[in-house]
């Protein structure tokens, strides 16, 4: 959310600056040319540490193309606020002023010089004069003025009531902001400086406010706790802390009248004030020498709780050791002793989780999860261990001892294990007498293809269809053969067809040889065989008379009957006058072919 707001603000600033520059450019373009000027100014020449000054960069008659960049000045923090612009139109003359505002704060007292700046405006380099800013050490109000009740507001720090601290000790300081009872309201409280030499400053938490009488005035006290960790020895200083806030005091015109009505109608006057504390010092000491063996740097006071589980395991199985340290101190710095030297255990890096019970992060619990794995069934217990810490209140080391914890370790794999799990290899894989690995092979051997297995390769699967197809083809062939064998008429039909086919060749041959006798003998036989097959009677029973009797009854077309009759007559004639020329024989053969082609349509 803050990031979004920051982005939005930054974007608004850029657009604002660009808009100002654009408007200024448009207006300047229409006016009579005049030289641009550039000046810098501070709203004050001196301030106290914790206060801020405003630095303005003013451009008249022009402006830089972007946000001016300021040099880095050690000790000063200069942050850009944004631009503002002003336009005037007097007697036809337009003038514009663009001012870039910066906030200047200091991190330490001193006299600072903001050097003269050189900025390019419309191709011309404009320069400014150096500025001097004096930052003074703030002074806390005197005790007399505080006790007299003359201070509207003041701040003070309360350090722990101790003579000394130890390195690594965590403690808490309290910043108190006192507001007199006539302060009607306050806001925008900001801690502007928090010098803490030798301390690591932690969280700041506001505690419940209370009211306290001081002298003859009543003050509202705003306590703020500051977590501190001592990080070095010697004399440590804390402060002066400075803070700024806006308070509302009764208006000068509303002091009189009835207090009841005044609380409703008095609007008051807002005033920004700076609060400054004194500088405090305290001594920090080294920890005493000869720390105990289990000391890992923990400072504070702690208690320890240990739990483990499971306690009935197989060798190699992990056991989780939970170590919980509760107390007050720098929990982040606490660590477990080194368990890696435990015999019979394999240890893993511990994980830790810290939970604080106070808002400052000074008290809480740190839980370690240490995984250990017993390596053999001879392990009977988790060894005893101790964790030591230094108690700064008692000024001595304390030791938290944890006795040994009994566990039961079974041989690896001795638990109920499914049949697929075993701690010994299959007997077929390892010769019992092998005492070391066998030496390397000296021959590379055949390089085997590493493609997909044959089982999933399409060509291989398709190949398996070949014997299946062969079997199917053979089966079909066998069925047809069997069918033919069981059907005499079909068999005769095929035999006659084959005979006619062969006989036609013979007829053409005999015709070309002018062998009339063989020609007609063959023709007569072919006619008998073909008609006998069609009429389902012996071939020898076929004569010219059968043609008239049987074929006429079957409604055979007359031209076929006539053709057959003619062929039979020619055969009969040839017995008496066998000599014919080759052309006549060829014509007869053609006639037979035509008739023969029509005969299969006849059905008895």
């Amino acid at each position, binding site marked *: 959310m803050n990031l979004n707001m920051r982005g939005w603000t930054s974007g608004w600033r850029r657009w604002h600056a660009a808009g100002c520059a654009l408007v200024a450019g448009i207006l300047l373009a229409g006016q009579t040319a005049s030289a641009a000027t550039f000046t810098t100014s501070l709203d004050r020449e001196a301030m106290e540490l914790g206060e801020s000054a405003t630095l303005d960069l003013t451009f008249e008659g022009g402006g830089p193309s972007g946000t001016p960049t300021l040099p880095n000045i050690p000790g000063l923090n200069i942050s850009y606020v944004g631009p503002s612009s002003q336009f005037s139109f007097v007697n036809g003359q337009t003038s514009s002023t663009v001012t870039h505002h910066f906030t200047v704060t200091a991190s330490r007292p001193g006299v600072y010089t903001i050097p003269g700046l050189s900025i390019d405006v419309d191709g011309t380099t404009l320069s400014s004069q150096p500025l001097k800013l004096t930052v003074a050490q703030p002074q806390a109000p005197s005790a007399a003025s505080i006790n007299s009740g003359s201070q509207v507001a003041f701040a003070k720090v309360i350090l722990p009531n101790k003579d000394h601290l130890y390195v690594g000790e965590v403690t808490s300081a309290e910043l108190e902001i006192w507001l007199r009872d006539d302060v009607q309201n306050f806001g925008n409280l900001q801690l502007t400086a928090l010098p803490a030499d030798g301390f690591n400053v932690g969280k700041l938490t506001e505690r419940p406010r209370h009211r306290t009488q001081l002298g003859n005035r009543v003050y509202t006290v705003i306590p703020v706790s500051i977590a501190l960790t001592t990080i070095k020895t010697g004399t440590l200083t804390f402060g002066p802390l400075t803070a700024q806030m806006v308070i509302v005091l009764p208006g000068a015109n509303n002091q009189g009248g009835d207090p009841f009505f005044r609380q409703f109608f008095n609007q008051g006057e807002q005033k920004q004030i700076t609060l400054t504390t004194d500088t405090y010092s305290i001594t920090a000491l080294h920890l005493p020498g000869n720390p105990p063996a289990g000391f890992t740097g923990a400072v504070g006071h702690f208690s320890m709780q240990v739990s483990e589980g499971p306690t009935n395991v197989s060798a190699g199985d992990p056991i989780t050791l939970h170590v919980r340290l509760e107390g007050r101190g720098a929990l982040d710095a606490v660590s477990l002793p080194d368990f890696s030297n435990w015999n019979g255990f394999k240890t893993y890096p511990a994980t830790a989780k810290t939970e604080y019970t106070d808002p400052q992060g000074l008290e809480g619990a740190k839980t370690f999860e240490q995984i250990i794995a017993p390596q053999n069934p001879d392990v009977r217990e988790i060894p005893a261990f101790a964790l030591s810490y230094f108690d700064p209140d008692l000024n001595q080391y304390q030791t938290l001892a944890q006795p040994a914890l009994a566990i039961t370790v079974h041989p690896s794999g001795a638990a109920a294990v499914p049949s697929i799990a075993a701690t010994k290899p299959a007997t*077929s894989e390892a010769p019992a007498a092998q005492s070391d690995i*066998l030496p390397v092979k000296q021959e*590379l*051997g055949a*390089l085997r293809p590493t493609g997909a*297995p044959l089982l999933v390769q399409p060509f*291989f699967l398709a190949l398996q269809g070949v014997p299946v197809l062969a079997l199917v083809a053979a089966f079909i062939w066998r069925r047809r053969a069997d069918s033919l064998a069981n059907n005499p008429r079909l068999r005769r039909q095929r035999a006659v067809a084959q005979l006619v086919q062969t006989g036609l060749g013979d007829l053409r041959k005999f015709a070309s040889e002018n062998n009339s006798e063989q020609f007609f003998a063959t023709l007569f036989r072919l006619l008998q065989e073909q008609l006998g097959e069609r009429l389902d009677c012996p071939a020898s029973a076929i004569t010219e008379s059968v043609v008239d009797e049987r074929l006429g009854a079957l409604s055979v077309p007359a031209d076929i009957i006539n053709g057959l009759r003619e062929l039979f007559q020619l055969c009969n004639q040839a017995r008496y006058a066998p000599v014919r020329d080759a052309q006549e024989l060829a014509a007869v053969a053609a006639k037979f072919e035509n008739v023969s082609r029509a005969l299969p349509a006849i059905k008895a």
Partner: protein
Amino acid sequence: MNTRFLLMILALMAGTLGSHAGADVAGDFAAANKLYAEGKFADAANAYERAIQSAGSAGTASAALYFNAGNAEFKLGHLGRAIAAYRHAALLTPRDSEVLGNLGFARNQVQGATVRPAVWQGWFGVLTLNEGTLVTAGALWVWLLLLTLRQLRPALVSRLRGLTLAALVAFVLGGTVLAVQATSRFATQTAVVITGNVLARSGPFDDAQTVFSPHDGAELTVLDRHDDWLQVTDGSGKIGWLPRKVLDLLPGA
């Protein structure tokens, strides 16, 4: 004609490239063996790995390469990597007694629970998947061709009856073996833990609670995967998630 000529050229080129790749692998293999003999096991392991990669890029693999790589890793104390290499070798030559011997020896060094193939699975693993496929296909061809012959020559039916039945039995047995092999190959995946100090967690993320700690070389069955995490079991009922980088994956049980 042109097509046939082009095919011949391509075949020659493929043969030439293949022989070059084989020559490179053989050279790397010899160099790695030399390093191994000199006791430079780390260099030898790297050289074997390069040779394996080189052979793999040519679409080939060598059981001897994996075997020797396993030996180099074993000498380096990398038990899991050695077991993974031996298992890769066993996939290529499942009846190689040296491979099985070293695999068994390395497995004996592994502590803690681990998944091992059952004895019956060992029987089915005597053949490679391709060998099982060819045996089964051969039995199928013989059986079908005998049936075809019986159709063509019915007179031979009585004489071929015994042979046909034997071919059928061979096909059924081969098919059973092949079914088991294929199920193991395609439906099961094994992972070998290749580093020490590994913690299996209850979920596929680093902050999940620790469930168990498999040792280097432990063989685990892969149950599921999520991004770069694999859900595994050590065979004793413990299930956890391990990062992919600490495992070497192998097909089959």
